[in-house]
């Protein structure tokens, strides 16, 4: 295969990767250890692979890795971890909005992209922005509560 090098900012650090031209962003992320991004449907239907590219949530199972060249990519690893979770992660855990957890990174990333752009996001904003995130366990009510609690409109802090 025709390997080529690309460089982009991943979780605030500029990094170079050798990629294959037809490699998707999720394949690149996962083979380089960023396994917090989950591959669900692989067809853009479930949102479990959502990462933030240049400030917007996208499906990493669809975007080709070469398209990330020169851009800024944020994955769940850059958002928070067990010792220092992001308020969205804390809110999801506190609200009981996580069961198997497979959809959670995608939900956190999509919600973060919204709150970064609109800290006072309303319930309607969350509904629109998370219309591509499926959860097969929780039934969405707890997820909605968790996300809304992070909006400054409801006194939260993201």
């Amino acid at each position, binding site marked *: 295969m025709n390997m080529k090098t690309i460089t982009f900012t991943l979780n605030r650090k500029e990094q170079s990767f050798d990629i294959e*031209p037809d490699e998707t962003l999720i394949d690149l992320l996962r083979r380089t250890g960023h396994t917090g991004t989950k591959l669900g449907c692989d067809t853009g239907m479930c949102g479990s692979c*959502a990462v933030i590219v240049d400030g917007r949530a996208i499906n990493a199972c669809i975007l080709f890795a070469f398209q990330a060249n020169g851009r800024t990519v944020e994955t769940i690893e850059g958002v928070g971890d067990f010792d220092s979770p992001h308020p969205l992660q804390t809110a999801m855990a506190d609200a009981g909005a996580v069961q198997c957890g497979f959809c959670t990174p995608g939900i956190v990333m999509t919600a973060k992209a919204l709150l970064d752009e609109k800290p006072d996001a309303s319930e309607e904003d969350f509904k629109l922005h998370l219309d591509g995130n499926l959860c097969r366990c929780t039934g969405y009510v707890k997820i909605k509560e968790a996300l809304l609690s992070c909006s400054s409109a409801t006194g939260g802090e993201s």
Partner: protein
Amino acid sequence: MNYVDFKSPTQLDEARTLLKELGESASPVAGSTLHVFLKDESPKVAVDILRLGLNGIRLVDGVYHIGATTTVTDMLNHRQHGWVLDRVAEAFVTQPIRNMATMGGSVVRVFPWSDLPVALLALNAELVITGDAERVMSAPEFFATQPFHHLQAGDLLTSVRIPALVEGQGFAYHKERRTTTDFSRCTIAAWLALDDGKIADVRIAVGAAVPMPRRMDAVEDALKGARPGPAAFEKAMQAGIDAPRWKGLHGISDEYARHLASVHIVDVLTKAHEEAKGA
């Protein structure tokens, strides 16, 4: 897709030269969302067209110029007098895909679920193709066949122009689906202009339930000069409903597709009329 190489040009001329030189073995890539549906295994060089500065929405002399790489999210977020594509963008599948998919990629290849072509037909859009010379095609010409047939190697769709809505005009769009990621059963767009309480001009387009998006000429003809209202809309719908060959998709019958269209033609006309009245 079987991409064997990729190029990331930053100038339109550079991208066009590459595409021309590489011919059939190259493919422009915008949001790249189409590869989910289009399983082309022939080896191709991907030419990324997102760095050419073709994005953005500008209002020039009452006409919106929408750059080909403007994303659906940009269309959804845009707020300006006479801008209506946000209503169509909202119906366009999910947020991550709206963030990736572009105007160009969404009209160059048309699928039953394609939202923008239906709206562009009702809005009398013009589509600008940059080849060795610039060509402008009307929406009915562009969508008369699969639009990529209009493009030679090295040609790119560079922008789409839509007249801004003015006072006395209204526009509405309806997409029939069960969930946000569900494929459309039927899509209808209507634009109408009032003059002295009568319908001076009207355009209705339908998609999903027909092989290619198309205008409903007989419905339009029945409405021109008429006094708008439920009776006129129903009568016009009846006059044209049997012109297309209805095709039921995703488990619905052809007859039910026709039924959905008959209901939503009247609905979108009613909504467009409300807006035209200033309601």
